[in-house]
């Protein structure tokens, strides 16, 4: 910053100061005249006009406040106050010690530090800009989020640009990734006059917390004491008088306009009482380590195909700024602002936000039906926006597009018990019904854990199966091929060295005929008999020109848990001896193979089925859960 230069106000003769070399305008603190230096010479000053008194906006910033960013120190030496019709804000002139300068704008509890940038030669005129327009600058994709006009209401101290008090200027606010922010300034014309680009920051990132003050807040609060409802005369209390734009009378529900330092103005007389909020306005709660106060309750609704879908919105205020609590069908979400530049359109109407893909859910035009409480913008019943919701449970991403502004917000699903805990409510505020658009599947964590366990169990089962298969001897204890006759066959004695199963495999030359082999396994030391039967039948033919067949020429049965010992097998065959259908014939011989200690794949698959039954059932339930969710969307089948 250069040394101070002082001149005399051409209007009143008092001293006006040009502390910074970049200062072009200075506002006389005695007569409120804005004067501009002509060229570099401060000896010649031009009168630009008188500015209105500053509105108390409750700013913790003040002239002379020093700050620092990236090791560079600056001081606030002046400010502009602009009003876009629904509220005013401050733009502070930051003069850096190294001669550079920037703007520090304040909005909704945050500051926006921007610096002048060269104007690209291809900059489109104001008329061609739309909210949502994307363009690239400074190696970043920027999105136009606001396209408005604002009136220069007041100024204080020095300014780095020429202004004409009372004129209306046009601007487009843009957002970029990671808090990037900028303003395209069109002045009073159509073409770009200046571009400022920078970043959204918390106050404490620029200023020492102990240097910030709340003097303006106190000053503003004094103006709003003893406010009375112009409709019913009841006292109206404002919780955040410096930001309030609308308030409803707690007595008669009339919607009132708040203008700082002025009596309340009636916007709408009370018509009908809206639904009661789930908790009283002014209720305080704790969430994410901050204290939040409920400021307002709105009911918004949309009519789709003759059906009215309504939901409650609660405006809450905490140290980080304004947030929303949304309640639909008893389901709750915590809503925070999101940057449009962090949202990237993706294939299939989806968007990506912070590395996560959000599916398009619905686009609608909800309208405000009821208002209660204190709000920071000039809301009205019937106010309508185009809203588009995207989901990636437990998150939802919403875009609200108005004529001059687009806003994005990200919502996180809250369990009812969480809401009860946040506001220390004696009982749950709602009983949810149906499935909310961003409700996470309640079985999701269990499904995830169980599926993981099923995968581990399957791996163990594979290893176990391989071990069982490798160690199963499959020893042939009996094999015989015999012609079919009425003879009963007895096998040689065979020994089982350990408890094992037996596989009896029989095949015969059945063809449009059957055979049954009645078997008995006799344990010689105990005289215990294990009776079993093997039935083989095979039929074939042609029906209506179509060939068909059923059955098989072989079959296998298993005998379990054979204790160790000596055994003999007894077989007694029976078979079709009559005339068989053409082209069949009765069987003439059969072949028996008996193996001990065989690997049974059916057991392995049964174990695998049992392991996966529950995880697959949970996957099925997820499908029905998702179907319920998407029933309410634009993509309902």
């Amino acid at each position, binding site marked *: 910053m250069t040394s101070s230069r002082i001149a005399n106000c051409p209007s009143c003769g008092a001293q006006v100061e040009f502390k910074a070399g970049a200062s072009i305008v200075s506002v006389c603190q005695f007569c409120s005249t804005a004067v501009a230096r002509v060229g570099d010479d401060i000896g010649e000053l031009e009168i630009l006009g008188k500015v209105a008194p500053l509105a108390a906006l409750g700013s913790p910033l003040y002239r002379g406040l020093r700050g620092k960013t990236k090791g560079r120190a600056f001081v606030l030496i002046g400010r502009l106050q602009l009003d876009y019709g629904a509220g005013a804000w401050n733009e502070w002139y930051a003069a850096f010690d190294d001669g550079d300068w920037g703007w520090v704008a304040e909005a909704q509890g945050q500051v926006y530090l921007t610096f002048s940038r060269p104007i690209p030669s291809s900059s489109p005129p104001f008329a061609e800009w739309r909210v949502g327009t994307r363009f690239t600058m400074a190696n970043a994709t920027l999105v136009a989020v606001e396209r408005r006009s604002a009136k220069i209401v007041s100024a204080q101290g020095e300014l780095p640009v020429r202004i004409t008090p009372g004129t209306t200027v046009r601007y487009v606010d843009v957002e970029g990734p990671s808090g990037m922010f900028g303003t395209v300034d069109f002045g009073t014309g159509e073409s770009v006059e200046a571009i400022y680009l920078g970043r959204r920051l918390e106050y404490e990132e620029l200023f020492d917390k102990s240097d910030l003050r709340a003097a303006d807040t106190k000053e503003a609060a004094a103006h709003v004491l003893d406010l009375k409802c112009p409709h019913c005369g009841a006292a109206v209390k404002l919780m955040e008088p410096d930001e309030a734009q609308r308030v409803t009378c707690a007595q008669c529900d009339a919607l009132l306009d708040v203008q700082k330092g002025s009596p309340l103005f009636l916007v709408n007389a009370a018509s009908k009482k809206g639904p009661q909020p789930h908790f009283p306005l002014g209720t305080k709660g704790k969430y994410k380590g901050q204290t939040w106060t409920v400021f307002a309750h709105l009911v918004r609704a949309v009519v789709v195909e003759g059906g009215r879908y309504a939901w409650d919105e609660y405006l809450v205020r905490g140290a980080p700024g304004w947030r929303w609590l949304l309640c639909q069908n008893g389901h709750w979400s915590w809503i925070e602002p999101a940057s449009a530049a962090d949202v990237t359109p993706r294939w299939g109407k989806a968007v990506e936000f912070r590395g996560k893909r959000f599916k398009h859910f619905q686009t609608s035009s909800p309208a405000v039906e009821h208002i209660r409480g204190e709000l920071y913008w000039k809301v009205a019943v019937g106010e309508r926006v185009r809203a588009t919701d995207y989901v990636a449970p437990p998150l939802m991403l919403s875009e609200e597009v108005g004529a001059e502004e687009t806003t994005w917000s990200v919502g996180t699903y809250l369990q009812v018990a969480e809401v009860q805990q946040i506001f220390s409510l004696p009982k749950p505020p709602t009983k949810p019904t149906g499935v909310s658009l961003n409700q996470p599947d309640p079985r999701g964590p269990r499904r995830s854990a169980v599926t993981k*366990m099923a995968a581990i169990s399957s791996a163990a089962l594979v290893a176990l199966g391989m071990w069982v298969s490798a160690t199963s001897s499959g020893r042939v204890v009996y094999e015989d091929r015999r012609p079919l006759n009425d003879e009963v066959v*007895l096998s040689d004695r065979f020994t089982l060295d350990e408890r094992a199963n037996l596989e009896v495999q029989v095949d015969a030359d059945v063809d449009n005929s059957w055979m049954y082999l009645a078997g008995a396994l006799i344990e010689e030391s105990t005289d*215990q*008999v294990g009776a079993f039967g093997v039935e083989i039948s095979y039929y074939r033919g042609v029906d209506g020109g179509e060939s068909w067949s059923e059955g098989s020429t072989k079959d296998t049965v*298993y005998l379990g*848990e054979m204790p160790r010992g000596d055994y*003999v097998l007894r077989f007694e065959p029976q078979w079709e001896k009559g005339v068989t259908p053409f082209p069949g014939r009765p069987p003439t011989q059969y072949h028996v193979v008996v193996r001990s200690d065989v690997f049974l794949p059916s*057991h392995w698959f049964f*174990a695998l089925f049992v392991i996966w039954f529950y995880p697959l059932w949970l996957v099925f339930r997820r499908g029905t859960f998702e179907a319920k969710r998407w029933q309410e969307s634009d993509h309902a089948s």
Partner: protein
Amino acid sequence: MRADWGTRIYMAVATVVLLGYAACETRGTVFASAEEKMPLPPDVRSTHGGYRTHTFWHVGYLGGK
């Protein structure tokens, strides 16, 4: 995070299935066994063509039952 009751029950079931499978395979258990156990009827014992072994009938073994 602590597993919920459903997950814990599933964990127990999966463990039982694995241990059960190993036990069944070790014992030679067959779930759908074709066998029907019964004591040998006395009239079958000495019937020719009965359960006696090939050795019993053809090698002249006369002892036993």
